[in-house]
């Protein structure tokens, strides 16, 4: 006979709380890149293919394959699925896949441009809530700017209509803005507008970092993207604009993430409890990393558990081999400020361990701004980095910076 323990018959938790408890588990978050196709044609995009690309469409995973993958993810304990693209709402079976996911007991995070949100879709989100804010990327505040970026006439009105359907149905969403030469003059007004649009009054997320083409499919497109990147000093000036918030964030960041990264290729959480399935059935350790040797052929193997237990952990043992990387990045104490990673190295140079000049410049500009480096100093040359980190941490704590 057992004792009756009534005090904790039931307990109410938020998904967020539960997720925190799961972060050491085999799989707690998956990204499903439903399609690389998009109804917009943004110059800066790292992945988009034309909406009418029939070859891409034919090669995409079928509805039943997505269901099988999602079922497997749920069986491993996954709580959150992020649908992204391309534009995920281009998939005609989106509603079916969405409902299937929610009925498996997983919450949904949706990244979209909002232009394909219809009244019935908003009504579905009202009836079966995604449980996470819909993340909407905005490409400009005015119609002119917006369509200069998307290169699709009518896209601005379509986005506005989508937002209106969400607001009518009281669906929670968050906005994020892309910082480009075209959107820069509108940035302050955009922040104000986005904050008014957000029911919680939260400021919008801003994307400053532009990745090159993830499929390494066009040198011309890469050159275009590189031209759209902000100069490093401007980049740093903008991210540090909200001084108090920036100092608060950086205090924690300096304490937790700065210091030499060493020779291991992976210093992030790629493949540890998270995974991303691309449109064609290749399982990636993160959404960005598409190096052919580092993806798991889920469509052929149909074994997510094996990928999480064997394949991804084996990747995490990989060591950098590039001499320049070993001399610089591996020893650089400000590498936590640098966006260089195996995925971006692959996009930029076709290898996993090549230093990326642009991100190196941004990291050094930020380190100078924080007082971690003097002009001309390099992060891999500094011997007393530990003392410098402590000093800056103290300054940020006392609010001097």
């Amino acid at each position: 006979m057992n004792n009756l323990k009534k005090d904790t018959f039931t307990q109410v938790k938020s998904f967020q709380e539960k997720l925190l408890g799961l972060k050491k588990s085999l799989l707690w978050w998956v990204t499903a890149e439903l399609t690389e196709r998009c109804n917009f044609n943004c110059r800066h995009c790292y992945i988009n293919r034309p909406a009418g690309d029939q070859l891409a469409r034919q090669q995409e995973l079928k509805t039943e394959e997505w269901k099988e993958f999602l079922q497997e993810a749920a069986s491993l304990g996954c709580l959150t699925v992020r649908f992204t693209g391309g534009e995920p709402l281009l998939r005609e079976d989106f509603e079916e896949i969405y409902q299937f996911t929610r009925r498996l007991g997983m919450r949904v995070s949706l990244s979209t441009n909002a232009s394909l949100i219809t009244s019935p879709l908003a009504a579905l989100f009202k009836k079966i809530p995604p449980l996470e804010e819909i993340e909407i990327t905005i490409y400009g505040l005015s119609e002119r700017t917006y369509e200069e970026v998307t290169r699709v006439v009518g896209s601005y009105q379509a986005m506005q209509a989508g937002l209106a359907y969400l607001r009518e149905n009281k669906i929670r969403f968050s906005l994020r803005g892309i910082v480009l030469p075209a959107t820069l003059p509108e940035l302050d007004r955009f922040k104000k507008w986005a904050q008014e649009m957000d029911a919680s009054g939260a400021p919008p997320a801003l994307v400053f970092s532009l990745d090159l083409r993830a499929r390494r499919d066009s040198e011309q497109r890469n050159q275009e993207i590189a031209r759209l990147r902000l100069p490093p000093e401007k980049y740093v000036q903008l991210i540090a604009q909200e001084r108090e918030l920036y100092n608060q964030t950086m205090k924690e960041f300096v304490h937790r993430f700065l210091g030499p990264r060493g020779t291991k290729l992976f210093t992030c959480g790629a493949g540890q409890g998270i995974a991303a399935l691309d449109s064609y059935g290749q399982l990636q350790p993160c959404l960005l990393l598409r190096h052919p040797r580092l993806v798991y052929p889920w469509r052929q193997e149909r074994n997510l558990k094996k990928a999480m237990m064997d394949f991804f952990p084996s990747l995490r043992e990989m060591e950098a081999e590039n001499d320049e990387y070993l001399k610089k990045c591996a020893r650089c104490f400000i590498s936590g400020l640098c966006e260089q990673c195996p995925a971006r190295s692959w996009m930029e140079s076709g290898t996993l361990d090549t230093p990326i000049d642009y991100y190196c410049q941004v990291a050094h500009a930020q380190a100078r701004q924080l007082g971690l480096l003097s002009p001309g100093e390099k992060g891999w040359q500094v011997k007393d980095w530990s003392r410098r980190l402590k000093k800056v941490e103290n300054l940020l704590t006392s609010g001097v910076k």
Partner: protein
Amino acid sequence: MKVDLSKKYIPSPDIVVRHIEGETIIIPITAGIGDLEDALFTLNPTGLAVWEKLDGQNSVADIIEALLKEYTASPGQIERDVLGLLEELYQKKLIVEVD
């Protein structure tokens, strides 16, 4: 509304029950289930023992009788606790009455 000893209840069709890392979790699917949008509900082993008997065949009285054979608590305490749990679940619309 009070849960009735003579009535039978089943889990709502608008929820999903998942077992993750040894924990039983009730996840609302449709809006209006539970109190909060971003909430899930966990059951302890005793709560789970009650939950598993909500098959539409057992009345609440049958569930209490079955628990009397499994647990050492007094009949009065078991009845109070089971009714308390079922009322909480019913108010949150996590269970529904069957005809």
